[in-house]
């Protein structure tokens, strides 16, 4: 695809829109998560600031903006500052190939999913840098956990997506959506249920959310790799965490749940409805289950998810061969 001036302008506009989306997403998700947590824990959640506490998230972000950036002694300050920025920036690229709607795709490339998976790996680097640069033992342990967890959970994730890619015969996300129908039984979920299950589990693992939030396990490592971060450093990690959540949910919606195809009226709203439904599912899990132990986390991955995903891929390939 030639990068003409029009494309360039489109991509720049898309990046700006994505920054907006990330911020809005974080504000909405902070509010939604706190209200959901309140509902699950039988308390009201935020309700003081604004009607039903809706302004709470904005006030929180203002507070984080205004906070002094505290740097502990003996830290490698270049890496210490680079880490949150590195966590934030890849996410901008990651949203480009996502087809939100039939006419709402920033970057129509044939290898869309490859681009996403490649840049998603950057998140790990920022975690390592954050943990290493903060000169903190909790941070170091959190970083070590983050690396082995992310590396482990990327593999079944890719394997699960490969099943769908085999079916569609394309890595172009728009084509993957177009091959699926509007109704749930026409989605890839119906033909690849095992892959969907594996993807959802590894998606929770990949975004470091409970019950797989080992890198920032509060009761063990206080806050893991971002223990020493305050103010905007912390806010950037937070933003990128929610943006990553939205990303994996968008990918899930695109691959398994029909993307922008939906009953009655196709459009970008279906992508968002599906993605946010998945996000609320992750939130629900987080406030319900205790955390797994680290060896259990790796066991789930290497002993169950990986063999299952290979099996799924093999079955898909065999069936496709015979159908042809």
């Amino acid at each position, binding site marked *: 695809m030639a990068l003409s001036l029009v494309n360039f302008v489109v991509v720049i506009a898309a990046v700006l829109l994505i920054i907006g989306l990330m911020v809005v997403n974080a504000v909405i998700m902070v509010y939604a998560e706190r209200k959901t*947590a309140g509902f*699950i*824990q*039988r*308390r009201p959640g935020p309700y003081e600031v604004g009607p039903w506490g809706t302004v709470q998230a904005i006030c929180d972000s203002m507070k984080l903006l205004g906070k002094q*950036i505290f*740097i*502990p*002694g*003996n*830290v*490698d*300050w270049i890496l210490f500052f680079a880490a949150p920025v590195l966590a934030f920036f890849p996410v901008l690229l990651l949203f480009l190939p996502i087809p939100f709607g039939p006419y709402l795709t920033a970057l129509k490339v044939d290898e869309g999913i490859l681009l996403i998976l490649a840049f998603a790996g950057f998140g790990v680097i920022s975690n390592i840098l954050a943990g290493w640069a903060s000169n903190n*033992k*909790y941070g*170091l*342990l959190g970083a*070590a956990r983050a690396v082995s967890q992310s590396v482990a959970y990327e593999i079944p994730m890719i394997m699960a997506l490969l099943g769908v890619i085999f079916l569609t015969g394309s890595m172009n996300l728009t084509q993957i959506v177009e091959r699926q129908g509007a109704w749930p039984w026409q989605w890839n979920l119906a033909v690849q249920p095992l892959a969907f299950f594996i993807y959802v589990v590894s998606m929770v693992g990949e975004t470091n959310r*409970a*019950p797989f*939030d080992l890198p920032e*396990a*509060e*009761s*063990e490592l*206080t806050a893991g790799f971002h223990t020493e971060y305050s103010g905007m450093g912390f806010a950037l990690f937070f933003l990128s965490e929610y943006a990553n959540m939205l990303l994996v949910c968008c990918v899930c919606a695109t691959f398994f749940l029909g993307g922008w195809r939906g009953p009655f009226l196709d459009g970008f709203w279906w992508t968002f409805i599906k993605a946010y439904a998945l996000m609320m599912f992750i939130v629900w899990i987080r*406030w*319900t*289950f*205790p*955390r*797994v*132990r*680290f*060896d*259990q986390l790796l066991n789930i991955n290497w002993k169950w998810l990986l063999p299952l995903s290979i099996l799924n891929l093999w079955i898909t390939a065999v069936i496709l061969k015979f159908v042809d």
Partner: protein
Amino acid sequence: MDRFNFINPFGVRYQPDTVAGDFYTNNFAKKAESNTIILNLGPQHPSTHGVLRVIVELDGEYVLRAEPVLGYLHRMHEKMGEVKTPWQFLPNMGRVDYLHPIAWNWVHVGAVERLAGITVPERAEYLRVISCELNRVASHLMWWGAFVMDLGGVTPILYAFEEREKINDILQIVSGSRLTISYFRFGGVSADADDRFLRLTAEFVPYLRQRLKMYQALVTDNIILRRRLEKVGPIGVDMCQRYGATGPVLRAAGLNRDTRRDIPYSVYPKFDFNIPTGPVDDCLGRYLVRLAEIEASLSIIEQALESLPAGPILPPKAPKPTFKLPAGESYFAVEGARGQIGLHLISDGGKTPYRVKLRAPGFSNLSLFAEAARGTLLADAIAILGSLDLVIPEVDR
């Protein structure tokens, strides 16, 4: 590192690597192996619940050695017992263990009564049993919530708080306070139970039984929780006896010991209650024993409410605040939520006791942590620490 020894734009100067740390860390580090991390868990750490500090030596995530450091909440309760009259010392007892203050009330009041030969009216004994068991239920509920929070489940503690609020409301009717209760007086209790107290208590028992069923389904049977607790941190009878551990920790190990039955006091012999012992001595065993103890306490409360006699709550010649202890010594032990609580009182006949010794079960239970945590994963060590049910003010006294 000299290359980096400059002032960064934010004014933080790089310093050469020095071995930082206080006496405890440095002393602990002397025996460290090479390529290990020495990590300070606490005194400010989310899962040490208060100001306990544990120094651990980690090989990766495995705990090679652990050493608790105490004293961050030492408040000299024993010394205060020597400079205050028994009456003035009474409110201290609610502050020793903020989760089960009534048991500490009881141990002090009981030791003084034993020394001065004061008889307690039967109604007061029943009220003591009811309030103490209610408080034990509150303490166990609080532990349950905090323990599941140590394992990463944030929600149950808020459910536990809700139940505990109801107990606090009930105890507030008679004692006037909600946390640092001092309800007992020498010879009885400070206030009689009114109808509201009795009605709310009677309503609370079936309510909590119903809730416990929900907790069983929601938390206890959860597969993640089971896998986190099964076979983690086995503490056998032998280890318990070497360190003097009592209470649910000892009972989970399989030894059926309970002060309420073995060294009977008050009107406990009149009640028929189950003393749960664990089938397994791991963290899950301790978890199940505590939940079963809630049921046992509820049954005691029910029986006490049924047979609550009428009568006075203080003896006719109840001691006045000016009373003097006779010379001599006495020891009184009760079963607290964390194990056997004891108070040894020595008086030389003066205004204040000569010596007051408090036996805190948490102290003994904590001392076995170093051995139990050896060779476990960090997450398991946190689970073991949580399963000991520590209340730091009680450990430090």
